[in-house]
Structures are given as C-alpha cells and as structure tokens.
C-alpha cells in the first residue's frame, strides 16, 4: 500500500486517513506484526535533503499509527529519498507518484 504527498509536504491527505486507519487496525489486531514505512521523495533538489524529506513523510505516518494505538515496536521507518523512484519521469505526474510512503509488512 502506498500513500502520496504534496510537494515539500509531509502531511497525510484527509482522503488517505482511512488507509492509515486500516493499517492501524491490522497492526493493532496482531501485536506481533511489524511494518516498515518507506519514505520517498521526488528527484528534485539534492539527494541527502531528499532523504530527510522522505523520512519526515514516513515519520508523519508513524506518528499517526501511534496515535491510533499501534505499538512503537511494530513500526520501523526508512527513507530512501529519491533513490528508489516508483516511476521514472521528469514532470509533475511522475514526481507526484514518487512522493510517497510505502507500507511494507515484515514477513515472518
């Protein structure tokens, strides 16, 4: 699952709240489950700054999950910045699909 962000923003869209809530329920139901929140940025600007922007997005989602009752130990974040784009392209349509947080459940 993926949620997308506006340019230079780490705010979860009101429309995507329901997605985060659904993940919170899954995680709350099974306290042994774990999710990695992968933060990403678009390619514009410098690479390390983009790692920081991606982390801010992942942390925003993490904080929401915590508020919804998910345990700290169930969430890990990692930011890939612009290093792992979902789409290659140098225009807003591609950029908007690369500013994202992916939910990756840890296989056990």
């Amino acid at each position, binding site marked *: 699952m993926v949620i997308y962000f506006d340019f230079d923003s780490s705010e979860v869209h009101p429309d995507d709240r329901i997605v985060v809530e659904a993940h919170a329920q899954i995680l709350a139901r099974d306290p042994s489950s774990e999710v990695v929140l992968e933060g990403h940025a678009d*390619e514009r600007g410098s690479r*390390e*700054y983009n790692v*920081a922007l991606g982390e801010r997005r992942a942390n925003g989602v993490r904080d929401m999950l915590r508020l919804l009752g998910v345990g700290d130990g169930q969430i890990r974040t990692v930011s890939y910045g612009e290093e792992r784009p979902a789409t290659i392209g140098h225009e807003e349509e591609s950029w908007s699909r690369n500013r994202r947080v992916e939910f990756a459940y840890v296989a056990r």
Partner: protein
Amino acid sequence: MRTFRNWLFIVAFLAGASAPARAALEIEITQGLESATPIAVARFGHAGSGPAPPESISAIVAANLARSGRFAPLRDLPQHPVRKEDIRWPDWRRLRVGSLVIGSIEETVRGGAREYQVAFRLFDTFTAGQLAGQRYTGIRPDQLRWAGHQISDDIYYALTGEKGAFATRIAYVTETAGQEGEVVFALNVADSDGGNPVVLRTSPDPIMSPSWSPNGSWLAYVSFEGGRSRIMMQELATGRRQEVSAFPGINGAPAFSPEGRRLALTLSRDGSPDIYVLDLASGELLRLTTSPDIDTEPAWAPDGRTLVFTSDRSGGRPHLFRVSAAGGDKPRRLTFSGRYNARAAFSPDGSRIAFVHESESAAGYRIAIMEVGSEKVDVLTNGILDESPTFAPNGRMILYAATDRDRSALAAVSIDGQFRQRLSIDEAGVRDPAWSPRLARR
C-alpha cells in the same frame, strides 16, 4: 551501538565476479574556449625489446590538456620528434604552436617484472628553450596512466603557474539494469579522465554520497543494505569494508574532516536530522545542531574549523548555514536569495562554496557558486536537475551530476562558467560524483 571499531563486514575485494560491465566514462567537451592555447604533444618514443606499452602517454597528456579547457592540442603533427635534436623548429613556429612536448618510454625488466622509465621535455618553440622536463622511473605497467597524468600536471604547472588536477581520481555511483531488469547500484572510482574504472561495490540497494579521505585511501558512503541506512568506509587498496554508523533513522551525508580523523554526518536518531561529528578513533559523537528541522549535508571548510550545512529552519525552504566544528554555537545563515540552496561544497582554498540553487525567477535546480562572506550567487549551469557539486583539487573545475536525455550523467564546468564537458556511460545512470584529493603514485 556499533562504531568504527566493530569490523562487521570484511569482504574480499573482487571487482570482476558479479560486477556489471566496467564501462568507462566518455568525456565530451560541450563548450570550449576560443582562448585555449595551442600546444603539440608528440608521440613518445619507445625503446625496449617488448611490445609497445599498453598505454599511450602522449594521448593521455593531450586529452588531459584539452579537458582542462585551457589548451588546444594540435591534431595533425608535422613530425613526432623524440629527441631535442630531432625538432624542426621552423615547422612549429610556422604553425604558431608555442609549446611542444616530446618524450620517451623506456622498457626495462627488473626481477623478471617489466617496468618503464617515462621522461618528457616541454619546449618553447620560439626560443627553443626547455620550460620543464622530468623523468619517472620504476613505473609498473598499471602505473603508466598515472605517469601520463603526472606529466600532464607538470606541463600544466609549467605553462599556467597553477597546479593541475590530473593525477586524481573521481568516485561516482552508477545505476544499471541487471539481468532480470532489477536495478543494480555500484560504487566506482576512475582516473580523473574516466580511465581505469574500478567497481568497488555493487548492491541491489541504493549507494549514496561517497566522500574521500584526505589521503585518498578510503571512501565513506551511505549504503541501504539490509533495508536501512548505514555509513560504511571502504579501503580502496584492499576492498576492506567497515561499518561506521548504523543508528535508527538516517545515517547520511558522510564527510571526512580535512585532517582525516573525524567524519561529519547526518543522524536522525534524536528525532530529526542533525549534524554530528564522529571521532573515528574513539567512536565519540559530537552533536553540532539541535533544531527540530532538517539539518543535513555537512561540508567542512578546508581549515576544519567550521562546517556549512543545509537546513530548512528558516521558513521551510532549504538554505545554507555555517556552524563551528567545535559545537556549541548558533548556526549563521549564509544564503538569502533563491528558493532553494543546498548541498554545499567548499573550494580547496576555502574562498568559495558551490551548491544546488533554484532561483526565484527560473524553475530548475542548478549549480551556483558564492564567495564566502558575500551573498552574491553566480549560477554556473543551466540544467533542470543539477546536483552534487564537487571541486577539482586545484579549484578550477566543478564536477556535478545532471539529468539530461533521460539519464543521469556527470558534467563539469569551469568556475568562470566558460568551459563545459559531459561525462557519461551508455546504459548506466551516473551520479553522486566526488573528486579525490591529489594522489601519490599507487
């Protein structure tokens, strides 16, 4: 917590085995200079019983001089003299070529191993006087390119009075498609002319931000192996790797201090990305910034007393700030114009910084330069996604990454913006360049 002392990953250095094609960077001069000085580099004579040497020193020298932007090596030479007595001075004067390089490569066998003696002489063709000359002995076959670069530095110095930056290397990251279409990231180093490329590390996970140790023996870089960020150090000669930092959150933007004993880095372990300095011997961390905002991309001033970094602490847009390396002081803002200023690199003499800049008026991320202590920004490039500037160790050129023709490549621009080149590899994206310090013979 793991520190420098824990040698977690010690792996054999095997560049060949599973590495992608070791394609060399191809250099194309995209904007030349009318004012480039004509010079002739004659084919070096070869003495010895064996086959011709594996490298053409004169070709390396001529290409280097052309790449500097300051010289225009002659293509078709009327003669290829080897000794001074062979030079037909009037021929060169008629062509208005004021400088002529001649040289020789002599092959010897010592202890069963072949080695070379490489000598050159630089003449002023109008006075027939020698301007420079040098003999390098005990050159192994794999050091011939180094000899060519060293001779280029000698000639450059003799003719310009400035040190060259030819006997140096560049590190860069490539991205290629693997056999299954998967992305393969690689950390590479090559001579400053793209020759002699070596793959230091390949990974299915991203590799970022290589930084040279000041003696040129180690690279620090960011690796995402295992699905988290960590800073690794790798010794070039042996391939030996060690983990330097693997805290929760970001481990990024490593930068060796000028004396090589410390590493500046970005860590978000305390909540938000901040600048730290790691003492490599003791593993002790000194925290330099404490804002709840983004602080990253530390760059050491060459005197080691301050660092410049990127922060969005004033109004949410990234700008450059300066902070004392000793810690404890309040960062001072350096950039005030433009929408975006990030990823600073100091010129070797500390007088200038280069950085990624987006102006108020034009969309696009470009490389700009600023005198330290001034607020005037000079934009040097005209791309839309230019990033990662790194100075040549003589301060004359800036190497950076640019995205054009749908693939990232490297590009270089002289600090006056007059001379440009593009360094690309077919079938590979190239980025994150880092220019080495001057290097001794390896």
